[in-house]
């Protein structure tokens, strides 16, 4: 079929592709914005506290964030399919508890115990996904139920006491080498997860489908793509990553605490949202989420160093979250209005 006899209606379509691809609506604008916020925070805290700008601070921050970072990557995918997982804190605790059980009671090797913990996390995630998909219940409610049930299971497994495993799990928390100044294996792992997550979202079919489901699930179905296995996979991956975070924390504390991760789901979601992922689904970025994690971590470390009280820490962190979302929303609307 040749186009020669079709009217060439190109008169009103000048090549404005450059304008369409304007900087402000590209992901780089988001990254720049987040980076500037991060920079502002670092500068602020460095000025207010002489101890902030130091290797020790940054190493501490780097070793604080791996758990939050890997969970935030998983949560990015969950939010992008317009879902939510409130049970991540409980899964974190359960995975640590299960690994402690395996090491202390069954004399398993740390490696096996770790795998078991990951398996348990995967299972919890699959449960989340399957229940919400099969009975078409909003993931908010399903994960809310699991939040309670899994937490209870963690208590059961640890007999409601913190289980000390010593340095059996130390592997993850160990500094990899002194030349890197004490940054742990866990941090490197977290970076790897971030990079893999980004590649998965932007370069694979799976990532494409995740974006499609979050944008228009009915159109996906009518295009011949079954959204259900993808939804379940996303939740399963979330569970797996929450379990990984649990192991990372157990390694650092050298103990499995049944109260671990209480309330952390809100921090995780906050990090993802600061990064610009929409709660409505279809829009998000793993790299931006990582910036969100950094912002929260720097904020917390900085506030602690300048001696802010607990209540004011929470108020300020909450305010930062809301402001970040407002800025991002305004920017999105601005770029949409120019089309």
């Amino acid at each position, binding site marked *: 079929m040749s186009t020669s006899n079709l009217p060439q*209606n190109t008169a009103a*379509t000048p090549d404005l592709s450059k304008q*369409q691809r304007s900087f402000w609506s590209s992901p780089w604008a988001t990254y720049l914005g987040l980076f500037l916020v991060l920079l502002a925070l670092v500068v602020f805290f460095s000025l207010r506290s002489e101890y902030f700008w130091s290797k020790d601070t940054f190493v501490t921050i780097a070793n604080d964030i791996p758990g939050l970072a890997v969970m935030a990557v998983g949560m990015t995918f969950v939010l992008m399919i317009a879902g939510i997982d409130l049970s991540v804190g409980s899964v974190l605790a359960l995975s640590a508890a299960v690994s402690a059980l395996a090491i202390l009671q069954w004399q398993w090797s740390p490696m096996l115990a770790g795998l078991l913990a990951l398996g348990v996390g995967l299972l919890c995630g699959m449960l989340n996904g399957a229940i919400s998909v099969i009975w078409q219940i909003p993931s908010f409610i399903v994960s809310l139920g699991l939040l309670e049930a899994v937490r209870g299971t963690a208590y059961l497994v640890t007999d409601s006491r913190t289980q000390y495993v010593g340095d059996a799990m130390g592997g993850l928390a160990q500094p990899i080498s002194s030349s890197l100044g004490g940054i742990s294996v866990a941090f490197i792992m977290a970076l790897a997860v971030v990079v893999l997550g980004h590649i998965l979202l932007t370069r694979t079919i799976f*990532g494409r*489908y995740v974006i499609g489901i979050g944008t228009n699930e009915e159109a996906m179905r009518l295009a011949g793509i079954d959204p259900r296995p993808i939804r379940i996979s996303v939740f399963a991956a979330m569970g797996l990553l929450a379990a990984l975070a649990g192991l990372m924390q157990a390694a650092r504390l050298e103990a499995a605490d049944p109260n671990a991760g209480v309330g952390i789901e809100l921090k995780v979601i906050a990090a993802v949202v600061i990064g610009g992922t929409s709660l409505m689904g279809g829009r998000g970025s793993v790299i931006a989420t990582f910036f969100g994690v950094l912002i929260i971590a720097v904020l917390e470390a900085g506030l602690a160093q300048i001696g802010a009280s607990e209540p004011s820490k929470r108020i300020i962190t909450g305010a930062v979250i809301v402001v970040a979302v407002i800025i991002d929303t305004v920017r999105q609307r601005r770029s949409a209005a120019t089309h």
Partner: protein
Amino acid sequence: MSSSSLELATPLHTASSQAVVLQLNHLSKAYAQTPVLEDISLSLHRGEVLAITGENGAGKSTVSKIICGLTPASNGHMSLNGQAYRPITRRDAEAQGVRMVLQELGLIPTLTVAENLLMGHLPNTLGWMNRHQLHQAASQQLKKMGLEQLDPDTLVADLGIGQQQMVEIARNLQDDLQVLILDEPTAMLTPRESTHLFKQIAELKAKGVAIIYVSHRLEELQKIADTVAVLRDGRLVDLRPMAGVQEKELVQRMVGHSVADLQEQAARPSGGIAMQITDMTRAPAVKNVSFEVHHGEVFGIAGLVGSGRTELLRLLFGADKADSGEIQIHAPERTLKITPNWPSPLAAIQAGIGLVTEDRKSQGLFLPLSIANNISMGNTVRISASGFVSKVREQALALKWIQLLAIRCFGAGQSVGTLSGGNQQKVVFARWLEKDCDILLLDEPTRGVDVGARADLYAQINNMAAKGKAIVMVSSDLRELMAVCDRIAVMSAGRLVATFKRGHWTEQGLLEAAFAQE
């Protein structure tokens, strides 16, 4: 065409002797640097019906939106009854008596018809709703539109789309109405409902209301418009009294060149049976429908809104579950028998069936995503290797279809939500054409599509038929069906009541069959 506003060459009939109610002076509008409207000037008189027509993307919706306050003009000014008119919001415009009925209806589906009609002034005593008064007032308003059989306490969500549109129009018939803008009002109305609408328009005219009627349906404009304005690429290229204007001239003005008449299709040789449907049923929408479609044939399905055509196509595609029936697909190697349901649309697609849905925005497209993403969704096999998407191949795929279907856009990365209706539909077509389906089901493929894009789509349909594909086309445009199809079936109230072969049909006959079982 010169860029200055066009003065009417000859004096008009009575309408223009009335006072000017709305005046547009050198209006223009640009989004970022992109001009969408340039130097539009015209006058609208009391009791005049001004038709605005033009291809999609010509600027008709933009003009309407500026007049009704949805968006501000970038340049130029308007005056209402001699006073400067610059509505900040839609409510602002409504308060001044300028209202618009949008294509995307503004009704609230979870509330009743009565509540929607009187939204904003629900009869109440200190906040408690006065249901009796509500019912009365609503019934009166419905009567004006000839909708007295509609129960005002029906939930809007339970109404068919045609009825919803009528309610939306009824909602705008307020006493202070000075200017009413109707945007493609008959797109989803049956001929009977359209007649009611035209009666309403005539009554409003008599009351001195000025009406702006935006539409593609040229034969309708000839019936009700006093004046016609043609927009092309954001400029006003013609403004003249409707009397005596031929459709061909209008089309020529709209497209900037002459478009071949809707050619009557020569009889096509068709092959063996591609798909056979037996006793397809899904109560209450589809009842015992049976027919067969041949390779190389374009099989049309006509019928009134609500006759079950869309529901039928969805059953054939596996988008909905049938109660009973059988689908037989005759592929070269084997015959597939499905009783009565495909397990999912994927199964139907794998058997070679494709469906272009009736509502592209909610069911066919991913509006925020790019053209390239939309075409590749569902065709990921073509652009990927071992799970990884190749952006290069995706781009190439998109460019191929942008060229083949003449999709007007800035590039493959443009988000589909910003394309005009016709171009959006082309993107949907591209996705299915890439799949190379053996059997393509089209549900209102040219709804909301301008003349130029329509011609392109018909060319594609003919092309596919020539290649031996089987095409089932549901449409409310009888002339379109008569021009493109080899056979036309008519559905009424869920049943297939008649099938006509080329050469044996008339518009009259088709309409009669569509009204058959009431």
